[in-house]
């Protein structure tokens, strides 16, 4: 087995004595879709926050492409190729769809201290932005303000922005939340299309979506990973059935 593209070692986070994550050993293999499931309050968002660099771990380490990034800031991780989406859709409401995507592309320029050229005519930003819009079925919304998009389209934009700059790993925080069955099916299709192109850590409540997409699944309960394995293994695991699937279904 090759070295995992993203892994954590003994990663722990506690808030005022409360353990949100405990000794997490998580390995994301190159190219896989790895789902992270668990009941509410299991510490999934805390883990994503630590991986993305928004939450400082209490102890333990995070390695990305073999490099210790435990103390790197969020923006630095984005530049290394580790990108995230947000659970509550977080786009630039007062910009158009194309501007949102172009701004995401622009982030991967070495710097943006360019004061005079017209950004709206910058083909280096616009071309990949158009490509992303096409890939996510947003072409007809180019000039629409993101704040005026429907919920499903907004979520697609959210994920499209995460993919700007060709990251190697994306962290998706509950992408299916609140978009309805039609939107979910569409999103599953889109994410499935990314398989192999990018490694994915997918936090998701929708068990059907997880079973449809994941190569492997890790189960987080009370801040600890209690099992990791293929879809079949996780389905068959009695501990998981009791701790999670039991009360979810």
């Amino acid at each position, binding site marked *: 087995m090759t070295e995992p593209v993203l892994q954590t070692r003994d990663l722990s986070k506690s808030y005022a004595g409360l353990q949100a994550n405990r000794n997490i050993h998580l390995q994301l293999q190159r190219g896989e879709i790895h789902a992270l499931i668990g009941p509410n309050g299991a510490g999934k968002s805390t883990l994503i926050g630590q991986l*993305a660099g*928004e939450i400082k771990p209490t102890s333990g380490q995070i390695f990305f492409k073999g490099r210790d990034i435990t103390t790197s*800031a*969020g*923006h*630095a991780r*984005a*530049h290394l190729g580790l*990108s*995230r989406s*947000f659970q509550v859709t*977080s*786009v*630039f*409401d*007062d*910009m158009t769809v194309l*501007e949102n995507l*172009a*701004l*995401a592309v*622009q*982030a*991967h*320029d070495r710097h*943006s*201290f*360019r*004061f*005079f*050229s*017209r*950004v*709206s005519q*910058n083909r280096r*930003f616009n071309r990949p932005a158009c490509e992303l819009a096409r890939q996510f079925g947003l072409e007809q919304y180019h000039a629409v303000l993101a704040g005026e998009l429907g919920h499903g389209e907004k979520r697609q934009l959210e994920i499209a*922005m995460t993919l*700007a*700059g060709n990251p190697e790993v994306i962290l998706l925080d509950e992408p299916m939340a609140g978009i309805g069955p039609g939107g979910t099916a569409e999103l599953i299709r889109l994410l499935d299309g990314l398989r192999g192109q990018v490694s994915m850590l997918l936090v998701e409540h929708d068990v059907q979506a997880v079973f449809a997409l994941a190569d492997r699944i890790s189960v987080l309960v009370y801040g600890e990973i209690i099992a990791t394995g293929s879809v079949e293994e996780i389905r068959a695991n009695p501990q998981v059935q009791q701790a999670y699937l039991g009360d979810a279904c």
Partner: protein
Amino acid sequence: MSRRVMWILAGGGLLLLALPWLAQAMDESYLTTTVTRVMILAIAAVSLDLIVGYGAMVSFGHAAFFGLGAYVAAILSHHFHLGDALLGLPYGIGGSNELLLVMLLAMLVAAVVAALTGLISLRTQGIHFIMITLAFAQMLFYLFVSLDVYGGEDGLVMSGRNHLPGIDTADDNQFYYVCLLALLLYVFLARRLVNSPFGRVIRGSKSNPRRMQALGYQTYWYRLVAYVIAATGAALAGVLMANMNEFVDPGLFSWQLSGELLVMVILGGLGTIYGAVIGASVFLLLEILLSAYTEHWMFFLGPFLVLVVIYARHGLFGLLQNRARRND
């Protein structure tokens, strides 16, 4: 922007271009100096719009940089006319009377001060940012009040305006055109700035800073640079103001002036650049018009501002655009 708004702006521009002749024809030459003053404050208001309107950095201390610019001009002119060196340095830099050089130095001084104070101010947000920028401006105010060498509380008189090759700056009409050119150039540069890659980063940091971080932007430094750029604009306006009045005093740093600049920007409409120009013009012209009729013009201006806030949500420029859109 709609065609109608373009026409209005173009008409305004033409009027500005012809104003000194008109004023002379009407035998109201004070109009020229009045509008010069409006244009200078409009430059300062535009520079404030860069950070308030586009970056949500509400500075209540923008007059600090206006005052700094003005004092740089006055102090350099002071030493130029005395023929001695700055700060009593034995063989240091003397004064200067070259307008362009003075502008450059004033912008440099403002940039350094803005960078240092911005490093601290930008750690705070919202009302705290408003107050900390006010605090720094107040400190500069008291610093210049205590600088007895440069007149302290009484201010410093300049012996004539700075020199500009080929132009007689002492002539009010010619000075008017210098200021008009400065305003047009500054508005052009400001429009380019807000539409540049940098400008988009600043807008993004206003709208959703967390997402900006996640995308890979280190927003703090972009915001700091924006803050510095805005400060240099105010300093530029300050140099012109010192030249126009041939006098500076610590009142240029006052929080009242900072407040008025803010009012001009909000009145005209945030985040449009043109709005700042309109806001400055309307605010000052209203002041002048009302005071021609009554000594108690503030009694009317105050409620007018309240009504604008309640009924014109995006300022006067927003009102103009909405009307134009409805008519199109």
